[in-house]
């Protein structure tokens, strides 16, 4: 039996990164007895190794909990815990499409941050009811009045119903559950109408094949039903239906307003499209508006350190992509690095996460090349090319002009750091669009080129503001600018993997910074090595790495042979981790580190 609509509440938990969403989810799960105390652990829903290690949520997670409210009635609550990091904003937006309301968690020691704002805009977009939660009230730095005021001033929503909570101690959890029942709307839907369900998410499970997370809009879904995906017309017999508690629990049917999963012998995640509409075979329903697919915005090359591991890398990437539709890849060959893949990511954290997983879960050491964005190249013959890799830049005489992607960045920062933030944005070719104050905090909005941001903008922002700034961005489109390809020559030979696109006015400064960095990153060799930055044939910066002068063991007698032999072997292994460019060995970290700008 499915639950009657008035006793269902569906909501997502949204917040800026680290404000305590997953911990709040823990308490809700625990308070309702969904999981036994002895099986509880912190951030229970963050089950991936990488999530536990970094202490962040990457994947949205759904749990169904049963709650008996103060009015004595039993409710089914479906909660979706979402990630806070900007790279995974897509997970938040699609989670919101599957529910009617959200808990907007604000860390009461920090206040409103950039993702808090972004989440509010998304909620408004999705027609959501919001319940503000002021979290971490157990901490001495908690300041409820100030944060409530911020919520009203900066976000412009009523904070009188905000609930003070400590997700750590459990204070305020009961009130939160009551507010969910009282303030969030019940879903609507028609149990007797033809099946109409939203495909919210899907992922691959080694035992069960593809698991599809669905939200039922109308009708009923049962085991054995033949379902059809509207996007491609494919039909699959449903072999299992269930809900997450948070373990998978099989149930008989799902009715309107409910959220659960199905399996239907689907082999590849690619055969499912998030946002798709699901109905019964031979039935027609109107398609849901769907989601905008998540588009990779940052690209880089991933190459195995050991060329012999290329096939292993292919295998690893294919498996990861199976589960992550926002991650794209295509084969790439580099004169310097051999065979590898050009991969697309949602942002730098996404890149790091995928890279980490390949290195750890598949045991392949990687060289990562400079991240780049997609440039639009308009050729003289009117054709437009997408440039994913600076190394593929066509002959300039054939190019009419270039366009680069721009973003709208929103930064919240205490005003004592405002100057530094403005300088940083200015340095990154930003155009200021807005600057407002809420108390002692400033909110700045900048129009910035994405390529100035993908690499180390976030790190720089954190360091100039001692971690007090928060940042969010959205793509806003393409704009023409004077962009050129800068090549790096090491010992007179171009190293394709170090080519980058830069703005003409900054080329010299960037070139100088890069050659200086490389001079420190490349170990000394037996000969001196010129390191140059060039645009076309013109050298714009040059450094010389002087020759190594002394590397010899002073005393080496009978007892030293074993030790020196081991040392040599270790050094040989270290050398293997470098790449040879002509006669020069370049360490793998150089490809990324060379681009980091300190100032």
């Amino acid at each position, binding site marked *: 039996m499915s639950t009657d609509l008035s006793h269902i509440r569906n909501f997502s938990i949204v917040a800026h990164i680290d404000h305590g969403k997953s911990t709040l989810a823990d308490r809700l799960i625990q308070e309702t007895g969904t999981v036994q105390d002895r099986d509880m652990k912190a951030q229970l829903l963050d089950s991936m190794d990488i999530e536990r290690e970094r202490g962040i949520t990457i994947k949205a997670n759904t749990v169904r909990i049963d709650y008996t409210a103060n009015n004595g009635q039993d409710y089914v609550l479906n909660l979706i815990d979402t990630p806070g990091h900007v790279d995974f904003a897509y997970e938040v937006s699609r989670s919101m499409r599957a529910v009617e309301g959200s808990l907007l968690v604000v860390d009461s020691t920090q206040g409103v941050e950039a993702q808090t704002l972004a989440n509010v805009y998304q909620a408004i977009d999705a027609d959501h009811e919001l319940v503000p939660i002021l979290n971490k009230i157990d901490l001495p730095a908690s300041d409820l009045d100030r944060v409530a005021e911020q919520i009203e001033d900066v976000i412009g929503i009523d904070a009188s119903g905000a609930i003070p909570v400590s997700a750590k101690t459990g204070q305020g959890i009961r009130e939160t559950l009551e507010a969910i029942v009282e303030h969030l709307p019940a879903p609507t839907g028609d149990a007797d109408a033809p099946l109409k369900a939203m495909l919210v998410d899907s992922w691959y499970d080694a035992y069960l094949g593809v698991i599809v997370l669905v939200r039922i809009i109308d009708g009923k879904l049962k085991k054995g039903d033949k379902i059809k995906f509207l996007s491609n017309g494919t039909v699959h017999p449903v072999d299992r239906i269930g809900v997450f508690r948070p373990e998978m629990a099989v149930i008989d049917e799902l009715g309107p307003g409910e959220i659960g999963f199905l399996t239907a012998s689907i082999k590849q995640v690619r055969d499912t499209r998030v946002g798709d509409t699901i109905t019964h075979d031979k039935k027609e329903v109107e398609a849901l508006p769907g989601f905008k697919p998540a588009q990779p915005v940052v690209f880089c090359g991933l190459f195995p350190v050991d060329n012999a591991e290329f096939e292993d890398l292919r295998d690893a990437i294919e498996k990861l992509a199976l589960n992550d539709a926002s991650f794209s890849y295509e084969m790439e060959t580099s004169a310097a690095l051999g065979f590898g893949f050009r991969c697309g990511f949602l942002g730098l954290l996404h890149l790091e996460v995928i890279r980490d997983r390949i290195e750890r879960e598949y045991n392949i050491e990687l060289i990562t090349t400079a991240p780049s964005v997609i440039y639009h190249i308009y050729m003289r013959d009117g054709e437009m090319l997408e440039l994913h890799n600076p190394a593929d830049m066509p002959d300039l005489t054939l190019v009419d002009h270039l366009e680069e992607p721009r973003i709208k960045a929103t930064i919240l920062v205490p005003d004592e750091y405002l100057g530094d933030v403005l300088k940083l944005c200015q340095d990154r070719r930003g155009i200021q669009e807005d600057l407002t104050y809420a108390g002692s905090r400033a909110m700045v909005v900048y129009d910035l080129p994405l390529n100035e941001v993908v690499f180390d903008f976030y790190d720089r922002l954190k360091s100039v503001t001692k971690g007090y700034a928060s940042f969010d961005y959205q793509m806003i489109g393409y704009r023409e600018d004077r962009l050129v390809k800068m090549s790096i020559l090491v010992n007179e030979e171009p190293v394709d993997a170090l080519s980058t696109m830069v703005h003409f006015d900054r080329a010299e400064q960037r070139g100088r910074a890069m050659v200086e960095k490389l001079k420190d990153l490349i170990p000394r*060799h*037996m*000969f001196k090595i010129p390191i140059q930055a060039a645009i076309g044939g013109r050298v714009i910066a040059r450094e010389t790495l002087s020759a*190594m*002068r*002394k*590397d*010899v*063991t*002073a*005393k*080496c*007698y*009978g*007892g030293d*042979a*074993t030790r*020196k*032999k081991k040392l*040599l*072997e270790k*050094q*040989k292994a270290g*050398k293997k981790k470098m790449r040879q460019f002509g*006669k020069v060995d370049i360490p793998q970290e150089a490809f990324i580190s060379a681009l980091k700008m300190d100032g």
Partner: protein
Amino acid sequence: MQDDWQNAGFGLYIHWPFCSAKCPYCDFNSYVADHIDEDRWVRAYIREIERIASQTSDRILKSVFFGGGTPSLMSENAVGAILEAVGKNWRFTNDIEITLEANPTSVEASRFEGYRAAGVNRVSLGIQALNDPDLKRLGRLHSVAEGLAALEIAKKTFERTSFDLIYSRQDQTLADWETELRVALDLAGDHLSMYQLTIEPNTAFGDRYKAGKLKGLPSEDAEADMYFRTQELCADRGLCSYEVSNFAQKGAESRHNLIYWRYGDYAGIGPGAHGRLTLGGHRFATETELSPMGWLTKVEKNGSGEVARSSLSKQEQGTEFLLMGLRLAEGVSLDRYSHLTGSAISPSVIENLSELGMVRLENGILQVSEKGRPLINAILRDLLADQ
């Protein structure tokens, strides 16, 4: 067919692990002990001599080396008893070299006569520096004057005397070293060892260095300059730099150490001693128990102080052969390398290194050039890159 080790002969290394004090730069297996039952130790050395000899009785011994630690803390009788046992267990070459490392204090110098009577015919004196402040910083217990007096006695007592110096010390300039080196060359006989100070991990200097508290060490460039100046000045005096840190007139080279560098066979006895022994067609690397008391009780209980004996692969032998042999000015035979490993060093790597002026290849002999000498580790990394 002859075994490979016969290219360089057979030697015996005897490790005495005790010192009067631990020098702050030293990572040798040495300890300060308040009481040493010397007779017990001598008996243990003799048992080890008998054990190794039973495996190598057909060999003719070319050299014996008492190293340390500070072997000059042993009594004359102890050295005598050990050498007697050596003589009973092996045949000697006519020109056998018997070296003892000595610290140049007056007490130790007073034993030189007795060592000579026991059969020692060469000493290597740890003079280390020729100015008192530096000796102090190096943690040495002797003064320059004491050192020179010991050297004087040694020269009178032994057929062959060498001494050790450490340079590239804290706050030492090229000019400082040059002055000191000239004095050293005036004092030197036909052999001299000069080492650039190496900061070894797990020593007092190593710890201070890691904590950023060891100041005034010369830069890589300054070290290279001092190294080349040393080479020049020695050459002017007819002392050939036959190995990276060793200088001698023709024929006066340390025969014992040449066994190591030419990759011959050697037995190592005493705590933490290493050996290389070719037995039944395999070359073994042997190692003994490191801790003095541990070694002593092992020998007494089990009749052996050995804790490891592993057969070296062809590739390992090739690596060792090169890393030892290329230290010598005479270079290495590539035929011997191929014979050891069953493979050859890539000709293109050798060609690249020759073009850079780092090595020379003539008549199948590969030598590191004067220019390449201070870069041997880098040269080895290239030569062995795909081995």
